[in-house]
């Protein structure tokens, strides 16, 4: 066994690019939410479709706009549109003849963009297109590069109106390029048909304006209602089913939830009666979407809801010692025992209390203590969370060098901070920031009893 052998083995693993990009996108959306939580908690997501080109490119000028020619073909096509793409939903629908072929064309700056197909299943809208013409750059990074080589906007481009989605990089095809994207319809009530107002603003090396109203019609889906529910023992959290929408390649679960704190988040695992896991796309406050369909012979689904508790950073002055910092929602405590300055360093000694080490992994604990920071008390102005970080000056916060373990059994730690750049440093002017949220997000999740949803109830 050597490096070559290892890499050969790895080369065999196929990377589902589109799904990986979608997972990355979801991670970013979750991250953004996490950061925004102090402002807007547990609200349905309405996050912008992330364009890979700079926003200034959206404002194209001096373009020549030509009328769009639109032909909606009524006959579904078989087997060619999605063969070049990774979209599993697109492939599945196409093999069932459920992707509508289109031929809508718009021309600008010597580039023709044609929307070639569209589908609408569950809340997923898939659109494919091709670009050709003399204006196209021949040297796009394509699938090897990190950028998608095109930008787009929905409606007038206002951020609040953009939908989430994922897209595949442009792919060379003949003299032009082809591309595919999936958009997620954001509202809970899904219209049976609509025109998606889509404008490409950058295509294959050139900015421009290629506008479309892509006609889509929802593929007929079966809706099964259910009022099954599950709640935590103390009744603080509950999950109540409303309906399951069986799409041809996707699934939607609608429900109601109750959480104790607005920052708390929900996740879930869903299996069918054969043990097949549905491929989760996104969880919102009242709706979860899945990128897989429910098999025909499925009698019931098992839903495992799980809530993660959230807690903002606790900020507390260290001017008086010892200092006890107590988590607002949990039992956890940080006891600061000693602060000393030595050789241009501030050394903080502290012990963690009321932490069940069998519940919290070692690396999570290490991450938690590594993220303990100091902040100039007068700069905090009573702010917390993201508001605090956004309003701080660059030199307000001191980040610790790695925290070291003093006594593993007692959970005693020592964090060291560089203070050589601060004139007249006095720790009494500082507060400690304790990220209790790291512990709460990684432990203490509230697992509700699984919920069984019968899919064949009216017989």
């Amino acid at each position: 066994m050597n490096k070559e052998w290892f890499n050969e083995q790895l080369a065999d693993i196929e990377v589902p690019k589109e799904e990986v990009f979608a997972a990355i996108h979801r991670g970013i959306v979750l991250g953004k939410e996490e950061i925004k939580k102090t402002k807007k908690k547990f609200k349905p997501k309405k996050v912008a479709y992330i364009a890979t080109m700079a926003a200034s490119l959206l404002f194209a000028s001096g373009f020549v706009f030509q009328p769009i020619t639109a032909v909606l073909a009524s006959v579904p096509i078989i087997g060619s549109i999605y063969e070049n793409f990774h979209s599993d939903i697109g492939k599945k629908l196409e093999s069932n003849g459920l992707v509508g072929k289109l031929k809508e064309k718009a021309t600008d700056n010597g580039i023709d963009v044609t929307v070639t197909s569209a589908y609408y299943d569950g809340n997923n809208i898939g659109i494919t297109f091709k670009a050709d013409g003399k204006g196209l750059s021949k040297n796009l990074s394509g699938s090897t590069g990190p950028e998608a080589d095109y930008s787009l906007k929905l409606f007038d481009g206002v951020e609040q109106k953009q939908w989430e989605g994922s897209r595949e990089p442009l792919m060379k095809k003949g003299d032009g390029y082809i591309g595919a994207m999936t958009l997620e319809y954001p509202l809970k009530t899904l219209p049976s048909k609509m025109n998606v107002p889509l404008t490409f603003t950058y295509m294959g090396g050139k900015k421009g304006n290629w506008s479309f109203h892509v006609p889509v019609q929802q593929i007929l889906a079966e809706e099964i209602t259910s009022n099954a529910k599950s709640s935590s023992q103390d009744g603080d959290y509950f999950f109540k089913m409303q309906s399951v929408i069986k799409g041809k390649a996707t699934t939607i679960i609608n429900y109601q939830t109750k959480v104790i704190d607005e920052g708390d988040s929900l996740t879930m695992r869903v299996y069918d009666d054969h043990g097949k896991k549905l491929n989760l796309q996104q969880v919102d406050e009242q709706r979860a979407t899945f990128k897989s369909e429910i098999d025909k012979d499925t009698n019931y689904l098992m839903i495992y809801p799980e809530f993660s508790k959230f807690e903002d950073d606790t900020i507390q002055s260290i001017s008086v010692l010892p200092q006890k910092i107590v988590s607002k929602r949990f039992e956890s405590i940080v006891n600061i025992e000693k602060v000393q300055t030595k050789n241009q360093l501030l050394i903080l000694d502290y012990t963690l209390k009321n932490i069940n080490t069998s519940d919290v992994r070692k690396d999570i604990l290490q991450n938690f203590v590594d993220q303990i920071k100091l902040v100039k008390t007068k700069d905090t102005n009573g702010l917390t969370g993201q508001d605090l970080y956004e309003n701080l000056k660059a030199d307000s916060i001191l980040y610790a060098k790695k925290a070291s373990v003093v006594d593993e059994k007692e959970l005693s730690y020592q964090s060291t901070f560089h203070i050589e750049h601060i004139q007249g440093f006095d720790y009494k002017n500082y507060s400690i920031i304790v990220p209790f949220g790291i512990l709460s997000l990684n432990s203490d999740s509230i697992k509700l009893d699984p919920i069984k949803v019968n899919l064949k109830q009216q017989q």
Partner: protein
Amino acid sequence: MIDINLILDAINGDEEAFESIIKAESDKLYKTAILYVRNKEDALDVIQETVYKAFVSINQLNSPEYFSTWLIRILIHTSYQFLNKKNKTVLSGDALIHKILETNHQNIEMEVDLPYALSTLDNSYQTAIILFYYHDLSIKSIAEAMEKPEGTIKTYLRRAKVELKKVIEGAKNYEQRMV
């Protein structure tokens, strides 16, 4: 190699820059996740969680040149956490049946021997091997990433290779006997 300026932009809160540097690492993220969790859906979950963690904490990355190592460390921690969670859940009744079915399902779907072979190793051996062979980290960097002395890492690698060899050759022998 990712443009260091893009990483700096991402650290300073530029979301587009963040997305592009993550996408530049996406193949490595996916393949590393597969080595730990051994199936596509879980690997995608791990990536999502990793990106989420990276997004909320990238402003704390002090040295942009360590971005890749930092990101992969988050991924590995997340994978461990994921596997741990899966193993810890106590199941009964319907849930237990699902678990059994799911496990069988995964085995059928397993495409390559490598993730399986790696999964038989101790966590530390597994990580040392992945960082050394796949992420091209030096013994010194692995020692830093895993917070262990260099000598320990060398021992991990040596033992891991011996054990991997046993698993892989064992599988080959089994195949031959089947023929």
